């Protein structure tokens, strides 16, 4: 901290009182929803990711037509769509926490949060549409 280098110590130039600075801090009252959604999607992903891993082994070396036939079976279509929804939601929530922890500059943080959430939404939609196109 360069503030400690000189004997003068840090100086604060701000048109706000100590009380004004402290007010409004603390819980934003929306953290529980994020925390809970992260756990709910995590629990959902336990069976779904195992299903996904097994389906990949099952599809190994198969042609595109065989893959479409497999994904087109109703349970597989639904399970793949569930996987896509839970996976990208869980991913968006997780990366959000990482960005909020390490990116301190407001403009960069907001820009990267928007970019990551947009990318998650885009990829989720691309996956879902592809699964539906294969199935129907």
């Amino acid at each position, binding site marked *: *901290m360069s*503030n*400690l280098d000189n004997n003068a*110590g*840090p*100086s*604060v*130039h*701000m048109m*706000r009182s100590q009380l004004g*600075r402290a007010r409004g*801090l603390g819980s934003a009252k929306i953290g529980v929803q994020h925390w809970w959604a992260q*756990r709910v999607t*995590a*629990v959902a*992903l*336990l069976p779904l*990711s*195992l299903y996904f*891993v097994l389906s990949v*082994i*099952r599809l*190994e*070396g198969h042609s*595109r037509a065989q*893959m*479409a036939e497999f994904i087109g079976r109703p349970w597989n279509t639904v399970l793949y769509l569930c996987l896509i929804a839970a*996976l*990208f939601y869980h*991913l968006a929530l*997780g*990366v959000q926490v*990482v960005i909020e922890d390490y990116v*301190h500059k407001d403009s960069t943080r907001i820009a990267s949060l928007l970019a990551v959430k947009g990318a998650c939404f885009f*990829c989720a939609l*691309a*996956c879902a*549409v*592809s*699964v539906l*196109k*294969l199935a129907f």
Partner: protein
Amino acid sequence: MKNVHEALMVGRNSEGKLVSRPLSPHLQVYKPQMSSMTSIFHRATGCALGLGTLILTYWLVAAAAGDHAFAVAQAIITSWLGLLVLFGFTVALFYHFCNGIRHLAWDAGKGFELPEMHRNGNIVLVATAVLTVLFWVLGFVVWLA
């Protein structure tokens, strides 16, 4: 300083002088421990899996796009580099899966005692290795069959 966040890192000492509050030392000061390393790996594998979803997206979109696009995707994924990336992906997936169960147990208030935490941390590492080997053995068996 004019930034509110910076100003919050300032306090007064017993003489009433403004001083910067002390910060805890950075990561490299600490000895690697089961608790910190498994936590860091959880976050790192989570980020890696995030990049891995791009492969998943590419694979599904290519399959939906047509025979040619799918053949190209399969060729890329089953190349040596593709398989190497896929191997890393499975390690990250199984680690995040196993350690995720550990995190859910902690959320339920279980497994906080140090000896227990060390034990289930080791279980996570062994389970990751076992599941990864199992996946690839099964994968090769199905491939050859």
